[in-house]
């Protein structure tokens, strides 16, 4: 009873707070992305392949499609104009994308049309409901720590609602067309098991007490890896039921995590990259030889791996267990993402737009 009172008081307090401070739902959530002749030169934040097609996402809800390996591009229909941060295709036609203000999009026609599955307002409501339910479901005999944790979850969820949709999703990981996670700022993470129809808040399954940003997820050797801010490195079994901490080799932030074969590479701030070949039990520093932050990674078709830096460095390894060769992207661009086109050309998503790069030989 006492707990409920506290929760109600918190809700009230944050409710007042919300009325005073929370901005109205930003118009960009509802505004279809502007079709612009300059789309190709806008800041693009991620790029991937949908079968033969290249799909790149970026600022202002711009989604670019290329069917000729990045030579020409056209713009897709997108129902929101927020910055889109990540994109993944589970097959040639079905793909998901995440973005700012809690936006999750889905396409079933290889990127031509997208619809909104989730936004920050709904994500916050879901998280609050989930926290309230968890709180209410606490058994009477629950120990003090569990009560404390549930109280904190509830309070955070209430703040999440009060803040409005200011938190971005920064990444996603789908294992098939139905099952996947979307995650982002301040431990915001949800899971779907039905292709995005319903979402379950997953934040209470993630050992992230400081509410750090979640930047990347990958699966290798039957496990899921989740990397984030300030050295956050978590691991879950294939079912993803609970993400538990593992020993992180780095205190700085990881901007992502990628795998090639059995090798997992977590990368991030100021040229730091670490690899694990044993499913995350041990990690070795990759001598990248760059100072710029590593913004992305792409698994190469022949089993290799390429890392890219924000200053346009390309780190190429034919075998990610071995040495990474340092190359410069030509032209040098502030790289955010990279995909390998059908013809083998690396095509970059960068703050200066999408661009075919000169071929890279390891």
């Amino acid at each position, binding site marked *: 009873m006492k707990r409920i009172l506290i929760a109600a008081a918190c809700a009230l307090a944050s409710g007042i707070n919300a009325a005073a*401070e929370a901005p109205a739902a930003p118009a960009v959530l509802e505004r279809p992305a502007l079709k612009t002749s300059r789309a190709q030169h806008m800041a693009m*934040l991620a790029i991937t392949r949908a079968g033969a097609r290249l799909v790149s996402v970026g600022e202002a809800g711009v989604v670019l499609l290329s069917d000729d390996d990045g030579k020409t591009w056209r713009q897709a229909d997108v129902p929101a104009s927020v910055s889109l941060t*990540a994109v993944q295709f589970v097959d040639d036609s079905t793909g998901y994308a995440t973005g*700012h203000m809690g936006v999750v999009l889905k396409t079933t026609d290889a990127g031509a049309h997208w619809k909104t599955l989730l936004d920050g307002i709904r994500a916050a409501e879901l998280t609050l409901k989930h926290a309230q339910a968890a709180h209410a479901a606490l058994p009477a005999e629950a120990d003090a720590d569990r009560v404390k944790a549930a109280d904190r979850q509830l309070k955070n969820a209430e703040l999440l609602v009060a803040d409005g949709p200011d938190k971005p999703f920064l990444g996603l990981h789908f294992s098939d067309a139905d099952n996947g996670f979307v995650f982002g700022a301040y431990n915001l993470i949800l899971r779907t098991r039905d292709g995005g129809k319903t979402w379950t808040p997953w934040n209470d399954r993630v050992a992230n007490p400081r509410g750090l940003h979640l930047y990347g997820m990958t699966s290798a050797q039957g496990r899921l890896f989740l990397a984030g801010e300030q050295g956050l490195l978590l691991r879950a079994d294939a079912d993803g039921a609970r993400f538990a901490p593992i020993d992180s080799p780095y205190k700085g932030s990881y901007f992502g995590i990628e795998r090639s074969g059995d090798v997992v590479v977590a990368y991030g701030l100021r040229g730091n990259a670490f690899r694990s070949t044993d499913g995350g039990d041990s990690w070795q520093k990759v001598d990248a030889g760059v100072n710029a932050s590593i913004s992305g990674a792409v698994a190469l078709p022949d089993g290799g791996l390429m890392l890219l830096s924000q200053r346009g460095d390309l780190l190429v390894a034919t075998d990610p267990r071995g040495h990474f060769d340092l190359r410069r992207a030509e032209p040098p661009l502030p790289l955010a993402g990279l995909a390998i086109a059908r013809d083998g050309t690396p095509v970059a998503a960068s703050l200066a737009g999408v661009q075919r790069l000169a071929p890279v030989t390891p």
Partner: protein
Amino acid sequence: MHSDTLATHPVIARLEDFDTRSGTLAERLLFNNRRLIVLLCLLASVFLGWQSMRIELNASFEKMIPTGHPFIANFLEHRADLAGLGNSLRIAVEARDGTIFDKTYLDTLAKINDEVYLLPGVDRPYMKSLWTPATRWIAVTEEGLDGGTVIPDDYDGSPDSLAQVQANVQRSGEIGQLVAGNFKSSIIFVPLLDKDPKTGEALDYADFSTQLENIRAKYENTPLPALSRLKPGVAPSGGSAAADAASVGAVKIHITGFSKIVGDLIDGLKQVLWFFVLAVGIVTAVLYGYTRCVRSTLLVMGCSLVAVLWQFGLLHLFGYQLDPYSILVPFLVFAIGVSHGAQKMNGIMQDIGRGTHKVVAARYTFRRLFLAGLTALLADAVGFAVLTIIDIQVIQDLAAIASIGVAVLIFTNLILLPILLSFTGVSPKAATRSLRAEAAGVESASKLFAFFGLFTQRRWATIAVLTGLAMAIGGYAVSLKLQVGDLDPGAPELRPDSRYNKDSAFMVSNYAASADIFVVMIKTPEDQCTRYEVLSSVRDLGRQLEQLPGVESVNSMANLSRFAMVGYNEGNFKWLELIPNNAALGAVQTRAPRELFNQGCSLLSLYVYLKDHKADTLNGVVEVAQAYAQTHSTEQAQFMLAAGSSGIEAATNIVVKKAMHDMLYWVYGAVIILCFVTFRSWRAVVAAVLPLMLTSVLCEALMVALGMGVKVATLPVIALGVGIGVDYALYVLSVMLAGQRNGLSLSESYHRALTFTGRVVLLTGVTLAAAVATWAFSPIKFQADMGILLAFMFVWNMFGALIFLPALAYFLLKDKAMQPEGATQNAAPHAAAHAPGAAGGQPNAPLSAESA
């Protein structure tokens, strides 16, 4: 109207036979006190001549802009928060070898920076270069944001600190702004103050420009421009090996900005003056060739030049300055003066040739032509004066300058000249010669006059009118393409290969952020400028503007805030978004440069960098921004246009465009009223004005063909053209109408007008056109363009008066319509009033021979 002409002016060989009480009050007042008038004029010349020595030549940025336009009013109101968005200068210092990350280069840059800093007129707190403390870098580290001045405090020129500078430049966001993309040059950005805030003294552009050239010459180690012009063969690096060779000659300097354009124009004016001298020389030579009389030629030229002298004196007395755009006006005054002076001289010469005494001849001419001349000059003066309706001070000044000049001509060329001629007379040989010419003795002239005479006959009049109509329609169709504003990159006043335009091209090719900046101001309540609603609205407008083909990029607090979110999140690009979180957005203020928002966080500036300053580009931006301001302005965020060089230019274009038509309505309104007062006949007004209108239309078409836009500098030229043309029309038509009203047929009247005033119209039209046509070779493109336009208008107005006017008269001024009333109602009383001494109206011998 003086419908009494030659018929009522008997030949009086001896002064004693002349009734000095005859003529109007004005005539008696002037001619019966000839010595006094000459003395007064002499005194006036001495005094005004002394005043004219002190006339200054300068320009002012603020005089060039329409201060009453809402854009400019907004800009001026928020000027304190918008430093550097008005008049500014960009100096690019280019390394001759290697890059800017070089000790010698940076040392030289520091010295130039310091010298420029000390120049008068520089708005020092807002000056920006690699060496100024306002130029900072920001970087992301594990600990958060780090930052400092681009040139570190402990800079010592060592390779290490040079590497540091390079790294700082790369993370400063100044590449393309202050530093060229190829790292071979960097910019010193110099905002200027039009007036010294302490002393209130106006910036001396010529002096400022000279000082800049001195700096340029010193650091480029090249001879001063004046020297290099004399010795083009001197190689730039061939100068003396100075002791300070390390820093001297290591750089090349490129300078752009309004003040440099004006400086170059003023500099070029010295050459412009030589073109004036040449033009005066040509006119003198032709005039002498025509009259073969030194006395009268010198008097006409002298009086016209005295008019310019008086004009200068009066300008200084009334506190006006000449500027590069009004410098042509004195020449126009001179030209109009010559046109009137030649008419007077011709009239007097013809009378003297008939045997009339010189004083009487002068008085006759005064009687015949004073009113026509006065009307023409008043039409000019009023026509110029209406330019004051244009809300741009430089044009208002020009209007005043031109009006003063034309008013002066009334005294010098309509009064002083005939009086002086009454003293000097003309050479007898010239007088008889002129009479022979008048009596159609000169073969070629008679053929020419016979040709012009054809236009008073049905067939040729029809052809002329139809041709004129076709030209008007065609000209109008072309003139619709007339653009407002600048059509070319750089400074269209200067030649494309001038140093300034080369410098301008250098800037365009090396720097992403152009000098053509349009700024939208966003006013918010105090301390609310970084709220999400405000910034997202600013961002939306920025995105709309970015869609325009003429827009290179935009920058604003909204743009910065997007990147700031990246910065606050360790540089992770995925945070590139305007986050709807007011606390996070507010925190950006501490890192934001002052250009983007004001001290009280109540005013944002949205910078729109344009590819050029063409009228189309500016129109596009204004259209989008204005529509957005109208639909999206709220209490929280009020969008206002406009500041920045292009904002000001856009406002100027809008004012000029409106003024272009208003001006023509007013000028023509004035001309029509004055013509009507003179002729008392609507038909005559139509015949006089339609040819002028054809010239105006064709002049606009010519501007299209020459690729000239209508702008502050070129706007007045059409009004001036009407002023020139109305002289011709009035002189020809007044003599023609007088003839018709005296019972002559249209053809006869016109022929008489041709032999009397028409020949002088022909003479001055061709002469002045030839004189100004030489300007086409001027080093200043503005003068060259004006020369072509004026030459066209001199010639075409002449054709208008000699071909279209009689052709229109054929249809409008039928003999039947004019003669009965003209002869009976108009001429008779005038004749009686004006020439009471000419009892019996002794017929003029040559005329009666002619009309018989």
